[in-house]
């Protein structure tokens, strides 16, 4: 029988401590009144209120949210199309190339994806005058390519172990394949679509390197702003900003995760 040995328990405690202590220190220190990050004086929320007065920050948050929303939506569409093509359509011309291209961005270092995309945009600008400038749109296009790979992975896994009997029933009753997909399949894989959307959103919101290559004057995303300030060192304001990000994301992931968990237990 499988049992937890003391080795397992020690491993788990140390492992989770390693994963969580660094983040927790940032959160704790964000409430520290001292300018010196590491000496605790007293509790304060002043770093949070000073964030609200930072206009550049607010602008970059909105730019990032815009890019992430668009990225997630289009990546879910492209990722679903790709997953359906790969799982359902059997052999087609160029399937090998397709499956290679769709998963390659997963392990491609960001710096190479960013470099390649920028060189392409520069070339098309010379050739056909598009894009006229680099900014939110070029960042979004690059993010979609990256995020589609992740969405594809999630939806492909869901479609691969999909019970097709309901689909077959609908087909026997005379529904066209497209209708079967829209009315039966899509609602059944909806949870995967949602987690794909959220993952794509989080990836886009988090990307620094690709955005740095593809942004132009006036387009600063939140990670670009954070990066330029943490290059200068640790500061309490960044601690506060980081804590807000950690809080929002953890809340989202925990709510979504626990909802899935309860659904699984009910089954």
């Amino acid at each position: 029988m499988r049992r937890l040995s003391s080795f397992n328990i020690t491993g788990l405690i140390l492992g989770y401590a390693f994963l969580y202590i660094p983040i927790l220190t940032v959160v704790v220190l964000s409430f520290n009144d001292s300018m010196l990050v590491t000496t605790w004086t007293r509790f304060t929320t002043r770093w949070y209120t000073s964030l609200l007065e930072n206009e550049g920050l607010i602008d970059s948050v909105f730019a990032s949210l815009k890019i992430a929303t668009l990225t997630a939506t289009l990546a879910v569409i492209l990722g679903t199309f790709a997953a359906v093509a790969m799982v359902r359509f059997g052999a087609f011309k160029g399937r090998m190339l397709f499956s290679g291209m769709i998963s390659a961005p997963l392990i491609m270092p960001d710096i190479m994806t960013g470099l390649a995309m920028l060189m392409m945009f520069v070339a098309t600008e010379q050739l056909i005058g598009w894009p006229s400038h680099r900014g939110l749109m070029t960042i979004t296009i690059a993010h979609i390519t990256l995020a589609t790979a992740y969405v594809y992975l999630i939806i492909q896994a869901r479609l691969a172990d999909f019970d097709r009997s309901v689909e077959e029933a609908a087909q026997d009753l005379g529904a066209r394949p497209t209708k079967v997909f829209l009315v039966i399949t899509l609602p059944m894989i909806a949870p995967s679509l949602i987690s794909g959307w959220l993952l794509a959103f989080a990836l886009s919101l988090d990307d620094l390197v690709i955005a740095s290559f593809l942004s132009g004057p006036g387009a600063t995303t939140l990670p670009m702003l954070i990066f330029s300030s943490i290059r200068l060192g640790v500061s309490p304001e960044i601690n506060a900003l980081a804590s807000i990000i950690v809080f929002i994301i953890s809340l989202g992931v925990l709510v979504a995760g626990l909802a899935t968990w309860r659904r699984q237990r009910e089954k």
Partner: protein
Amino acid sequence: MIHQNRPLKRYHSRRRSALRDRQFVTAVPYLWLILFFLIPFLLVFKISLSESVLAVPPYLPIFEWVPEGFLNIHLNIGNYLRLFLDPFYASGLMTSLIIAFVATLVCLVVGYTIAYSITRIPQQWRFIFLLLIILPFWTSFLVRVYAWMGILSKDGLLNQLLLSLGLIQEPKQFLYNNFSVIVGIVYCYLPFMILPIYSVLEKIDEVYLEAAYDLGCSPWGAFWRVTFPLSLPGVLSGVALVFIPALGEFVIPELLGAPDNLMIGRIIWIEFFNNRDWPIAATVAVVMLLMFIVPIMVLQRRQLRKQG
């Protein structure tokens, strides 16, 4: 006759529309990837063969129509020669390889231990533990790297802890060296190692282990002879998911590494942004792609196909 043909006609028109839908569903992502993934990388290859100039864009065209109607082709392999002859690039490559290798190894040992321990947890609680593994991965990458700046710096938390325990007499700089870069990589990429290993370990049938015990295997022997070989596919994809991004990592060496720590990712960045030498940046990218990324991807695909 006509009456009999109608269902057949409807069947054919349905088949046609279904086929059209299928072509559409395949073509849209296919075209996207060709336009925004394949062509960009082909362009990187092309630019790696052109000459660097001070212009916008900062490289000379390879193909040029001269007025007499000839196609002039300027191929320049100088960038590749420079890459192999200038020790600057070779040492950057070595640094990246060593750091990525050590970090992947640490990730493997730590990640395997955690993944293995999670499979020992009662089924109904595993989900929570997995969720807690995934959670930091969703949290901002920059924030995770930043957290280590606050811990490892000279006035950081680790120094304070060691000072108060009396283990060191004066603060030490733990930041800006290869050690801090490795810690950062392990921290950021650990979930990518744990998850694939866990998903393979979870599926291993207990029967094999029981058979090994019945035949007199020690627990340690059973692990190395049964569990570990069966978990190899997960180990391989975990290694690929950590090693390749670590090799091209830019943010972690930039923030946690020494200023003279020039991993490949930083070299590409510096050549591109600071020196505006696009051709050499492209050359570094091509060499890295052909030497490491393509072979590992091919290896991984072969492994996946073997599993069916």
